[in-house]
């Protein structure tokens, strides 16, 4: 029973948190082989070999695998699939792009965003924006699964798996990378941060969003946003938390000026402690908040910045 796990790699660097959480999920299924694919992937493969529970690392370095375009990456994974019963990855945008393509090429279903492993064929996954949890049993010979990383612990380091070089599959040549516009951030990465401070429509403007950032910096937190804040241009879209944005489950989530729509709750309601600051005491966010403060955020947030720590 072997598992092929697609490592999350950006610009040659391993996304350790996402990959290590997926390893925790994957090692319940069998021996984990990690595939590090990219234009440069050797260093990422080396880093992955140290994750506890990884038994082997395959490194596929090829210019066609740069930026992990779906077509050549899926072709590579399919070329390796014969040896594995499970093909898995953390549920990042990279994996959501590639794994359904892999599944269809193998004529199997994909199990998206699995939040729990029951056994080798049976998985739990949230549906309806996280308002229901479904347990599904796959009847497919091969299981293609993406794991919702926020529900799994990070696997430790200390392993020393052998690393093997492999070659890329033929590139179907259907797509080309043009450019990346990467949002610059010195703050912790949103999906792995221990503390997240999020702002919504109530913040009112891009300038006032600095208030949210100030509180985040005081707490060493990542900054998140609701769809309303992103659509209004207060915050970049990759800060969006929710059903269609990122799913987070930090130790502490502070929602400021966010009403708490179903779609936003889908992305944060597994946080350990939720704090809501909102001037509308009827806001649905108070139904999931452990600590709620009914107050004007423009008074409460500066006071909070001053009094914390």
């Amino acid at each position, binding site marked *: 029973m072997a598992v092929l796990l697609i490592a999350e790699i*950006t610009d040659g660097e391993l996304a350790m948190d996402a990959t290590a959480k997926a390893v925790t999920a994957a090692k319940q299924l069998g021996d984990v082989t990690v595939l590090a694919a990219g234009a440069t992937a050797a260093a990422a493969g080396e880093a992955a070999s140290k994750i506890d529970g990884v038994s082997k690392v395959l490194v596929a370095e090829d210019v066609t695998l740069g*930026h992990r*375009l*779906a077509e050549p990456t899926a072709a590579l994974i399919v070329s390796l699939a014969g040896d594995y019963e499970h093909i898995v990855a953390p549920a*990042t*945008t*990279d994996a959501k*792009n*590639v794994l*359904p393509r892999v*599944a*269809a090429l193998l004529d199997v*279903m*994909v199990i*998206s*965003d699995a939040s729990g492993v029951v056994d080798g064929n*049976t998985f739990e*996954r949230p*549906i*309806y924006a*996280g*308002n*229901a*949890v*479904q*347990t*599904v*049993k*796959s*009847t497919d010979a091969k299981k293609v699964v993406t794991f919702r990383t926020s529900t799994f612990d990070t696997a430790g380091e200390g392993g020393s798996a052998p690393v093997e070089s492999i070659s890329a599959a033929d590139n179907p*040549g*259907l*797509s*080309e990378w*043009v*450019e*990346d*516009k990467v949002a610059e951030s010195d703050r912790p990465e949103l999906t792995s941060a221990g*503390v997240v401070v999020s702002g919504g429509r109530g913040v009112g403007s891009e300038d006032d969003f600095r208030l949210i950032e100030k509180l985040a910096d005081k*707490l060493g937190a990542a900054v998140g946003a609701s*769809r309303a804040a992103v*659509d209004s241009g207060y915050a970049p*879209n*990759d800060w969006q938390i929710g059903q269609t944005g990122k799913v987070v489950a930090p130790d*502490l989530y502070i929602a400021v000026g966010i009403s708490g729509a179903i779609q936003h709750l889908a992305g944060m*309601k597994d946080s350990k402690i*939720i*704090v809501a600051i909102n001037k509308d005491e009827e806001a649905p966010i*108070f139904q*999931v*908040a*452990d*600590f*709620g*403060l*009914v107050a004007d955020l423009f008074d409460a947030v500066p*006071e909070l910045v001053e*009094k*914390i*720590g």
Partner: protein
Amino acid sequence: MKVLVPVKRVIDYNVKVRVKADGSGVDLANVKMSMNPFDEISVEQAIRLKEAGQADEVVVVSIGVKQSQETLRTALAMGADRAILVVATDDVHNDIEPLTVAKILKGIVDEEQPGLVLCGKQAIDNDMNATGQMLAALMGWSQATFASEVAIEGDKAKVTREVDGGLQTIEVTMPTVVTVDLRLNEPRYASLPNIMKAKKKPLDEKTPGDYGVEVANRLEILKTEEPAERAAGIKVGSVDELVEKLKEAGAV
């Protein structure tokens, strides 16, 4: 160029779903249903391509229960030219899996020969985010997922995608499958005259058998449960009290 737009009838996004007590699924009887929000965005994009002279026909397709024709009429009222309904089940609770949907869509694509398929990035009921990618795979076509900008230039499309760290622009060879993200456009409302006119637009009814596809689920649903409830929280009276509570909880 013809544009094919798959649309799905799903529970309205504002409805708080109820899980059935026997664990058999979500209760969809007498619940408001609407077009999947992402699909409204793909219909809008297809119509804009037509208005810009880049598309000459917009065909919408839906697969599921017979009532999905309401969803197709909505798309026709927005500006689509004609519709195909594939009746694949008579029970609203039977959600056809993305792999099956992709196979039926492949049958339609083979027949209709569109230059572009515009899908929503995910359906808000099963939250799978897979059908577009699966269709591209079955066709052997390129794919551009989570699109926030689409520019068609001859036999290529330049698509900006919403990815984890920001935005990524790629160029794909046509024909292609594009899945759309929330920020691609603002869908229009259908006007009353257009709703009336839509009733006269052609709507073909088909079955999965017409495309040689058997509807069978690969994933057996063992149970559907409510997510774990959160313990009730408290309201604090001041920032001081909030800080104190957070310190007690060891959160700051």
